């Protein structure tokens, strides 16, 4: 296995033709955070990939998650970092998972501030609950689907992204919010707030890196190898750590090779989807 990786890396680094590597590929990222934070996180990684592989990956960040999802639905990006690709409507774009994060699987949570009088889900029945966006998976689709299953009716309020709705939760604009458990934990640590988990979903692997079928396989392989190996390579590990610090991510950093099976839970979720508004 290690030998195979070495070969792939060798081929990626030295075996690809100049013509193939001269092309610029887009790397679309689902905007979970602000554009700048997203760029600060991804640009060093993409720069590392370019330096390692000669493949130039240009970061593409839409202003909002729906815009990003729509672009992905249209297959505009060569590479994507998103979990919206498992939605049934994205099937036509046919993005294929190539890498998954090394960190723990994410969970959807419905949280409230620790000093809030809300202590059970029942208590949010009939009230406003914040969500990142319609396209947020563990932040909206998963918790909202659960609420529907529990016959708990809430009025969703969207914050645009995870940071946005967490900010509203912190400021008290919403009593409870549907969040990504990891993003929420990192936000709480960074902003020094305490929160209460009213409900938590089964684990979902975090956002994968997927590739559009039009990207040549050698390019995909080169990119896969370069990103996968970053955590093991000193410069790559340093870049990952630095980027992780930008968004408050804890180790383990980086990505590892993955297959669609690793995201079967998403497929299963969508099979039992009650929520109609999810994108």
């Amino acid at each position: 296995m290690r030998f195979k990786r070495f070969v792939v890396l060798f081929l990626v680094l030295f075996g690809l033709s100049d013509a193939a590597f001269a092309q610029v590929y887009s790397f679309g990222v689902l905007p979970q955070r602000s554009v700048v934070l997203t760029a600060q996180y991804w640009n060093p990684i993409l720069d590392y990939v370019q330096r390692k592989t000669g493949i130039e990956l240009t970061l593409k960040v839409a202003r909002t998650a729906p815009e990003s999802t729509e672009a992905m639905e249209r297959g505009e990006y060569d590479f994507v970092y998103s979990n919206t690709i498992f939605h049934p409507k994205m099937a036509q774009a046919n993005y294929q998972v190539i890498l998954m994060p090394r960190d723990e699987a994410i969970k959807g949570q419905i949280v409230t501030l620790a000093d809030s009088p809300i202590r059970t889900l029942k208590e949010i029945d009939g009230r406003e609950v914040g969500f990142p966006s319609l396209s947020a998976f563990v932040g909206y689709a998963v918790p909202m689907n659960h609420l529907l299953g529990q016959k708990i009716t809430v009025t969703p309020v969207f914050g645009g992204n995870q940071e946005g709705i967490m900010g509203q939760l912190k400021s008290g604009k919403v009593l409870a919010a549907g969040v990504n458990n990891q993003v929420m934990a990192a936000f709480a640590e960074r902003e020094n707030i305490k929160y209460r988990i009213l409900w938590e979903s089964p684990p979902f692997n975090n956002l994968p890196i997927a590739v559009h079928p039009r990207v040549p396989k050698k390019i995909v392989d080169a990119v896969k190898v370069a990103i996968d190996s970053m955590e093991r390579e000193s410069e790559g590990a340093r870049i990952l750590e630095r980027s992780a610090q930008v968004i408050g991510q804890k180790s383990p950093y980086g990505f590892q090779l993955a297959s669609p099976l690793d995201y079967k839970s998403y497929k299963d979720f969508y099979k039992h989807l009650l929520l109609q508004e999810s994108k």
Partner: protein
Amino acid sequence: MFDYWNRLPFIGRLLFTASMALLLAGAVMLFVSARQEAFEVRSDLESALVQELELLPTALAETVVIGDYATLKQSLERFVAQPLISSVEFQDAAGAHLASSDISHDAKAPDWFLSLFNFSDVKGRASIVVGGKNYGELTVTLTANDLSNRAWSRLKGHLGILFLAIVLDFIGIWLVLRQGLAPLKNLQAATHAIAAGNVDIHLNLAGSAELRGVIESFNAMAASVQASQEALRQSKEQLQLAINGVNDGIWDWNLLTNDVYYSPKWKEMLGYADFELPNIFATFEGLLHPDDKEQVTQIISSYLNDEIKSYSIESRFKHKDGSWRWILARGMALRDEQGLPYRMLGSHTDMTERKQLQEDLRNKVNFIDAILQSAGSLIVAIGRDGAIVQFNKAAEDFTGYTFSEVAGQPFFWSRFLLPEQQSGVTKVFESALSGNIKKRYENYWVSRDGEKRLFDWSNAVVNDNEGQMQFLITIGADITERKLHEEDLKRSNDELEQFSYSISHDMRQPLRMISSYMQLLESSLAGGLDDSTREYFSFAIEGAKRMDKMMLGLLEYSRIGRKGEPSSWVESRQLLDDALLFLRPAVSEVNAQVRIEGEWPRVYVSEDEILRLLQNLISNALKFRTAARTPDVLVTSVIDSKAWHVCVSDNGIGIMPDQIGRLFHVFQRLHARSEYEGTGVGLALCRKIAEHHNGSIHAESDGEGYGSRFCVDLNVPHEIAKSGT
């Protein structure tokens, strides 16, 4: 140049200097201020540029990362709209170029200002690097025009302020100096005025503290000068007044030059005008009486030689009219340190009139003394202490005492009085001391040898200026013999009155018998009498009746003051009303008008007599009427402090003035009995009633046909009556 400068007034030089200094200082300050502002502008621009270059990449990072160049363009336009930013450009890594629109920032300041203070735009560049990726380069240009415009505007404003400050400074200095120098100007004018002799000056305090101090000192000096001059003037005036007003002539003899000043009064005293006599010693010598020269010369010499201590001498000087004037000369010499006289001043007082007065007084004294001594009456003057101060020869002769014996001894005169009269006379003297003098009284004096005689004393007092009695002068006329004669006369009158009464009373009885028997005889012989005999009988009876009436009148006349009622207080108006009541038939008969006027007092009289008086006067007024006029009788009453005056006026027949004297005699008639009935006693009766009341009666008339007026003045006690007019 310097001449012109020196000719400028102080205020002009100060104004020019102050204004130029302010202008120069202001210009330097403005230059420094503008340069400092230019420096600060550059510094501010550079700081602003640094700030913009720090902020802009961050602000544009998201848009650049997204690659939303439309939004980026809008952002650039938004940025360039901010102050100071004139342009913002972005060029991405691929060479794409975005630029903002040019925003006009026109320079309003002139080029020289911009170049002098180095106002220029600043430009800077910054890359937009996110996550280590350079997305492109921003070029920001900040314009200095806005700030230079502001600096230029400020400079102009400051220049305006400087100009205003200079103008205000100019005006302020001018006003302050004008006001501040005004006291100096006043001071200068006041100084000139004092130099010109006008010292009545007082300047108001004004100006600065120093000037106030100077003005105060000046005022004090002016006041001092004024006081000195006033004192000098008053002194001169007093001297002149003394010279002119004291009626003394002043002379001032310079012993060294022998010049003598004679005041106009000195010369006027001798009848000369000021210019008529030369001011030399010879004038004095020439006018001095020859007989007095030796004495005067000797006294002057003695005084100058300090042999006598004062110079005072009376001598005669020749008046211009040739008469000689007695002059009292007094003087005082001024002596030097050695005691030698060098000047002598003095006065001349005209003593002529005083000497004449003394002579006149002496003559009058001698005259009065001669009268006193030659008077037949006793004349005694008594001082306040009761001592005799004057005792004439008649007094000496009667009393047997000389003046020297009685003089100076208080109440010595009481020795001349009868013992029972001493206290009464002493009271008279004490009353005179307190201002109540009893002018006349009678008493007896007894001489040294015991002769007793009755004197009628007339008193008068001599008061001092305060009205206090100084002397009581009493003149006593010896009435011893006269008193005896009066008593004899009274006794004779009483006997005569008694005789008259007896005659008139006792003679009426046989007269009535004659009348009655004549009537009986006429009746018994009535049938045998012829007309002539009957007429004789009638004449005889009528004559007897008339004689009875005359006797009755005479009887009434004699009763006046003898048999009448004693006096009592009666209302005079009531008496008048009673009289008119009795006369009512007579008044009605002649249809007369009787008017009453005046103030009718309450009087102390014999009621019957006054009633008779009023009846007689009013009755006469009704009786002696003329057929041509309705009788109009006016009865008036007037009172004064001494008497009650009653008058009865009529519009009757009147009286010839030469007949008025006969009216009040008994049995005197002015008209035939056939014309007016009467006995001729009525008015005589009125006169006697008036005299019985210490009064008198008189008649007035402008002649026959002009009516008459009879007035009675009664010296009786009276008071305001309750009854009116």
